[in-house]
């Protein structure tokens, strides 16, 4: 295919030290069921799901614990059978270190499945299938956690003709997708064919980086017989795994931040998400587990298949713990991840990797110097932004100017900070500026509503005053002396008639 041979290269990006072979020496290991599972309710983009169980309930494996609230939401299922111990605020893997609602499940070790119901989507039709997917718990397992049912579906307005599978895994250290392709390749290919039919796409292209030769061989052998599934190797440059960058690398189409890839007939899924969709549709299994890479400064780094809610402590213990003890763990990759507040958190849908911090990652770096306008950051930015301008504006709180320079197009990949000679923590400023701007716009919206309500209240009070005045005036106008005496006459006649009626009634009695 001509498109497969054409090489596209996006501007910028950096060459990182991949450090992938640390965790690919061993195969994926499954841990035994832990003694406690803590499931945060908020593990995805969108609304928090509505709780369907209460403390003390017995649940089966795969049973719905919380159902999706609205369309942009996802469900939570019990990863194994057991009893609900509590629903309370516990520590979650979030950069803020703040607690959030979690459901604690005590497994009964029986691992009893609920009745599995595979989905015959061809018979049910797309609408009903999407409704079932809404409560399948499947979200993007590449780290973004966007509810997947919103991306499936045969939308007549913007039909999908190309399905792109994101097998790039560009961040250093992370190898969960690589190992998934090596060991669960069959499920992946079946899932690809299924999703391709669900979307009605004509072809599928798997995008993989050139540092995964084993996975490439296994996958390309599996798709030899498939005429509509192809695999394209892209050069290993960070961040080639970013959705819009990968689309450009594969077919040269540049999609801006405002537009969705579906408007261009392209839909993209991570390899792990495809396998999850396959297991739900064909086997009726909700999303209950994922593969996590534990790597870095650790005694036995490898990949694990874990149930959601598994305490991270038990995973770290199984690897033998840190080689150099510093009690610092990073969730995600070293370029875009964040420091975990503590190891006392559980595995969530977004946890693709936990890096035990190497000394170089946490040692006190040199103090930042002022910006010397060398524009190395602009050379490295894959979105062709001007990081130095965004830095000056974010630093001085000139948020409007920062937005003029397209601050929200920034994907926070970290390439700019990676190359800065002055050691400036650029991405920290962009995150700060973005959350300030969002908070300010929410405040402004609330202020606008308050202003409207206040204006309406003043209007209402004046209206009531006016109505009262009008009524008084009308009553005064009505009551001239003739009319007044007429009214009095009428009233007297009515009273007399009523008195007579009473007297008559008494007489009858």
């Amino acid at each position: 295919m001509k498109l497969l041979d054409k090489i596209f290269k996006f501007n910028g990006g950096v060459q990182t030290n991949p450090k992938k072979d640390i965790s690919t020496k061993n195969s994926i290991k499954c841990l035994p069921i832990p003694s406690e599972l803590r499931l945060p309710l908020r593990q995805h983009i969108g609304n928090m799901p509505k709780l369907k169980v209460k403390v003390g309930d017995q649940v089966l494996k795969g049973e719905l614990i919380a159902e999706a609230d609205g369309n942009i939401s996802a469900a939570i299922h019990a990863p194994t059978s057991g009893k609900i111990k509590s629903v309370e605020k516990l520590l979650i893997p979030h950069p803020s270190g703040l607690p959030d609602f979690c459901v604690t499940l005590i497994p009964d070790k029986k691992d009893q499945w609920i009745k599995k119901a595979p989905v015959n989507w061809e018979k049910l039709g797309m609408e009903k299938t999407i409704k079932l997917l809404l409560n399948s718990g499947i979200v993007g397992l590449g780290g973004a956690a966007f509810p997947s049912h919103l991306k499936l579906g045969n939308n007549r307005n913007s039909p999908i003709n190309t399905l792109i599978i994101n097998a790039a895994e560009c961040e250093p250290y992370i190898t969960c997708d690589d190992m998934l392709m090596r060991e669960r390749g069959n499920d992946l290919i079946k899932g690809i064919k299924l999703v391709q039919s669900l979307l009605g796409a004509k072809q599928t292209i798997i995008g993989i980086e050139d540092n995964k030769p084993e996975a490439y061989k296994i996958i390309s052998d599996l798709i030899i017989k498939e005429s509509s599934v192809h695999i394209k190797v892209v050069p290993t440059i960070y961040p080639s795994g970013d959705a819009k960058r990968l689309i450009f690398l594969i077919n040269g189409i540049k999609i801006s931040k405002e537009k969705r890839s579906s408007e261009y007939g392209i839909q993209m899924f991570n390899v792990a998400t495809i396998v999850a969709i396959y297991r739900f549709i064909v086997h009726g299994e909700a999303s209950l587990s994922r593969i996590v890479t534990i790597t870095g400064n650790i005694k036995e780094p490898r990949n694990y298949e874990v149930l959601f809610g598994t305490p991270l402590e038990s995973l770290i213990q199984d690897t033998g713990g840190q080689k150099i003890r510093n009690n610092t763990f990073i969730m995600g990759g070293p370029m875009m991840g964040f420091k975990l507040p503590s190891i006392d958190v559980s595995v969530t849908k977004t946890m693709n990797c936990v890096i035990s911090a190497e000394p170089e990652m946490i040692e006190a770096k040199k103090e930042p110097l002022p910006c010397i306008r060398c524009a190395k950051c602009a050379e490295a930015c894959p979105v062709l932004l001007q990081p130095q301008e965004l830095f000056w504006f974010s630093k001085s709180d000139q948020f409007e100017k920062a937005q003029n320079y397209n601050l929200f197009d920034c994907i926070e990949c970290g390439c700019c900070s990676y190359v800065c000679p002055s050691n400036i923590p650029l991405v920290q400023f962009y995150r700060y500026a973005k959350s300030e701007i969002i908070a300010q716009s929410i405040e402004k919206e609330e202020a606008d509503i308050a202003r409207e309500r206040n204006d309406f209240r003043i209007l209402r009070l004046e209206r009531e005053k006016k109505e009262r005045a009008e009524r008084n005036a009308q009553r005064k106008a009505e009551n001239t002396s003739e009319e007044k005496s007429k009214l009095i006459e009428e009233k007297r006649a009515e009273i007399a008639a009523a008195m007579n009626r009473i007297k008559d009634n008494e007489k009858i009695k």
Partner: protein
Amino acid sequence: MFNQQSPFVQKAPTVTLVMMLVMFALLPGIIAYIFFFGIGVLLNLTIAIITALISEYFVLKIRNLPVKLFITDGSAVVAASLLALSIPSIAPWWIIVIGTLFTIIIAKHFYGGLGSNLFNPAMVGYAVLLVSFPAVMTKWPLPASHLLDFNIVQQIQIFFYGTKEIIDSVSSATPLDYIKTQIFLGKPFDLNFTNGMPINSYFNASIIISLSFLLGGVFMWWIKIITWHLPVTFLLSLALISAIFWLIDSSQYLPPFIHLFSGGTLLCAFFIITDPVSGPTTPRGKIFFAFGVALLVYLIRVFGGYPEGVAFAVIFMNICVPLIDSLTQPKVFGHE
């Protein structure tokens, strides 16, 4: 603390390393310079660097900034060295001291310090010296055909006790100066320089020094300290503009070859206009900037009052940099 958030890894040379690599790239040029123009160059460099570091120390203390962090970043050393390489080697010691003080204190720190200077500090220092002491600044010694031609003792004497008479006796005009004067006087000049004027040896020295700076410049491009946009555009533009004028009237205008290899052209192309702080930040902006500098250099050299126009051309284009930056913003990925 810096390492509280991602990215947790980094691979970038520090500012100090970049500045030291620039000094390393200047070495071939410095050696060639000393070879042809004597030990005065070395004296200028040494005094310049010492003055720069001392004055920066005091200014940092007054400004209440961490001294160790800023004095070790090497930017003062580079600016002072570039200034020292721009002035004649037989200039007395007070010339370089005044120039360096202006460069560091006024052109760099009065505008805000590292990363905030509006104008190229070395060029500001040079411009101040040129305008204040024109006589001394235009007296260059005759280049030697080999090192021993120079009397080291005499050079040191001139450096520390230079008087007008002594300087006059060892100096001569630069090629550009000579040709400008000839044109002004309406006399013909011989491009082949075979009429025995010392200009000939002068020009040979100029070529070799320029090639040494070119070597240093290519090294800097190879290790990715600078991009190709500025030097290539500057040299091509200067060649093009001088070629156009030369083709129009070759008796009045010099050929491109001479413009490219005389004066501070190659030093300017690789070391002066590539100053990141005062230059543009966008690739297209760099092309406009370099073209503007080349045009102004040519105009000042040919039609202006000074024999060498690099300093004023650079300073003038520095003023235009914010406008150039805002007009040449690259199109963001995916935007129309």
